């Protein structure tokens, strides 16, 4: 046990020292963590033998996503969003449903053995993009700011939007075969889950934002403990909503949005600790993903799975994005660029864990497809980020060439 802890702690230490340096290289965090897990895991050197049971992995993944949803939503600058709202608005309101639809059609053509709802699940699980994986693009000054801002806002919000869609499909998929009334019941449950989640997130966050200045004015807050307010708030939103039978992810997402709006000026300082917690949890999740999941699944990828993964990263996302951005005064290069940079990551992993827990008949294929897509995305987007950014910048500088 101490060996695993030692390896993980040493790795976290090392990464925390060079994080900024790595961001400038083609290797983003996720690819480093995953490779580390794979190399030290049982398939590689065998130093890291994490016996992760499903429950532990799902708890970890859930908490990670809860924290990330909260911080991402808080960081989505709603005021700036109004300025350049058009691009992300189109991406989220039209592009995202189209991506899910196209993913569904592709899945229908490729996978024979899966039920329709299971295919819809795959399409939804692979629709949200991961901001952390796209960091190299989003923080690169060479990329025009409206594109960066658009991608950033999109990836910050689309995982939250996909949660209710996923739950609806999941509820329908688990109740198929029964009468229509059960589907209605399932839908009612989903709406309840979303409603409770939103209510808990709004209520708790509102209370927290009101209470904090009240306590701070009276000098009740200490320097050490003040760091913990936001991380604890995020976990509270998640756990309380789950306990009431609501969706904790919705609670975190809505809570985070509200927090970002209400705590506008000081939020950066208070969010810092939550971001540190979220990033560390994400690192651990990725390492476990590399150790325990990637190694064991590579053998079982069928050709349909690989083809779907490739299409998911290219056609299924790029075509809707391209069409949606028509008339936005963007060049073809820019539209293609935005279409390509929709990396799949943490949200998809957590969705896979959630779906796996439901033990659907096609569960194996579903999770294999998701895993395969994530692996390809981590590698593909990681390696292409810097060269493509440079190419785009060069093209924009002399538009006659392009």
């Amino acid at each position, binding site marked *: 046990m101490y060996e695993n802890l030692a390896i993980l702690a040493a790795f976290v230490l090392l990464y925390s*020292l060079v994080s900024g340096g790595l961001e400038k290289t083609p290797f983003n965090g996720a690819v480093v963590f995953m490779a580390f897990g794979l190399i030290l895991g049982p398939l590689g050197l065998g130093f890291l033998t994490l016996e992760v049971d499903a429950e532990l992995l799902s708890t970890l993944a859930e908490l990670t996503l809860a924290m990330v949803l909260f911080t991402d939503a808080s960081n989505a600058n709603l005021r700036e969003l109004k300025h350049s709202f058009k691009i992300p608005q189109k991406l989220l309101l039209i592009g995202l449903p189209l991506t899910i639809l196209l993913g569904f059609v592709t899945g229908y053509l490729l996978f024979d053995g899966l039920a329709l709802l299971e295919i819809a699940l795959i399409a939804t699980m692979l629709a949200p993009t991961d901001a952390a994986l796209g960091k190299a693009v989003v923080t690169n000054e060479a990329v025009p700011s409206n594109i960066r801002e658009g991608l950033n806002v999109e990836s910050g919000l689309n995982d939250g939007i996909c949660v209710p869609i996923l739950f609806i499909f999941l509820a329908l998929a688990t109740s198929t075969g029964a009468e229509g009334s059960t589907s209605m019941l399932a839908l009612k449950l989903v709406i309840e889950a979303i409603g409770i989640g939103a209510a808990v997130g709004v209520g708790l966050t509102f209370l927290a934002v009101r209470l904090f200045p009240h306590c701070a004015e009276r000098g009740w807050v200490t320097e050490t403990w003040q760091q913990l307010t936001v991380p604890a708030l995020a976990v*509270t939103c998640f756990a309380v909503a789950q306990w009431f039978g609501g969706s904790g992810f919705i609670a975190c997402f809505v809570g985070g949005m509200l927090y970002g709006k209400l705590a506008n000026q000081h939020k950066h300082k208070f969010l810092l600790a939550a971001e540190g917690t979220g990033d560390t949890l994400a690192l651990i999740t990725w390492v476990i993903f590399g150790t325990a999941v990637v190694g064991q699944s590579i053998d079982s990828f069928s050709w349909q799975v690989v083809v779907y993964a490739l299409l998911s990263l290219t056609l299924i996302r790029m075509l809707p994005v391209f069409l949606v951005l028509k008339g936005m005064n963007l060049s073809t290069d820019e539209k293609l660029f935005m279409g390509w940079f929709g990396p799949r990551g943490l949200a998809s992993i957590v969705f896979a864990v959630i779906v796996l827990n439901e033990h659907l008949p096609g569960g194996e294929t579903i999770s294999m497809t998701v895993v395969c897509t994530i692996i390809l995305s981590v590698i593909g987007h990681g390696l292409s980020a810097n060269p493509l950014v440079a190419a785009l910048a060069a093209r924009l500088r002399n538009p006659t060439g392009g």
Partner: protein
Amino acid sequence: MYLELGILALFIFCYSLVAGRVERTAASGPIVFVVSGFILGPMVFGWFDGSVSRDGIKVLADLTLALILFIDAANVDFSVLKKQFRLPSRMLLVGLPGVIILGALTAAILFNRLSLLEAAILGTMLAATDAALGKAVVTNKAVPNQIRESLNLESGLNDGLCVPILFLFIALELGNIEGSGTMHALSLLVQELGIGLVVGVGLTAVGTKAFKWCQAKGWVTEIWRQVIVVALAIACFSVAQSLHGSGYIAAFVGGLLFGYISKDATHKLVLASEGVGETLALMTWFVFGAGVIGQSFQAFTWEMLVYAFLSLTVIRMLPIFLSLSGTGEKTASKLFLGWFGPRGLASIVFAIIVLNKGVPNAKFMAMVVVLTVFSSLVAHGISANPLSAAIGARVKRSGG
């Protein structure tokens, strides 16, 4: 599971808002956590299932102590230590051994079932004081500066000093039982301490060097900077443990070296890890309240109660008082320094270590520790503010 997570997170959230206020009242943080754990736990409301596995508690307590040893040691201000060397050095070098010896003798007399070495183990477990419990005193401006600094330095260092002594007694006791000989036990101990020392010094030296280098290159981001000290402390602990050394020594020595190297930058770097350490401590106390206190009540005997009372009074106060003789301190100050040695997290973790090492009367000793810690929580919590005010008034009157 979500209910428990929700309660814990909500509790941490609420406490984070009022931590500063609570520290100024009679109720210290730990007592709030223990009482909340007890009330929410199976004995009263039953919302919080206290049945955390032994492994779970051990991991939690291990990490908590490792982080706290590192942080406390890192926060030791060497410039203050040099100036204020007189009192803490006497308390640590003369007072601490005195406390251990007196504690062992009292235990040997009171508890017939304990062997002499077991009595010594018990004495050592209860010699370490907890800085967090004494916070109300250490941060109270009414208390003379010198006394506050001395208490702070003492409690920051004495848990680290108790670790090798505790391990020595455990090794001797186990060596006796297994008949493998004292020499064998001692060589194991030296090996354990040596590895811990080397790992702590080595990792911290390399870590801080690497940090400065990477910092200069601009590789360290604002978000990940918060993680460095936590990762370093846990790395010291777990690397030493996995090499069969003492992780506690590694964390303690690593912390000392870190504070020494980083000097003024320490506070900023350590801040985030203090947040993690405090949260872990909160959870440990909470679990202690929910899962341990309630179930232990029936096991307490009057001998234990007598020992707990003596441990908090004579066993600590007499050696500390004697060790300070000839320093020119007033009797009131010496008694104050003797009284404010609250027992807390370190003693609990030591009890868990002893339990896991398989010392024969470990369960019995753990009960004594639990009772003493609980008594200390109450007594030191209640007395902190009144006594601080009293000593402040006294010193002012005689001084002015």
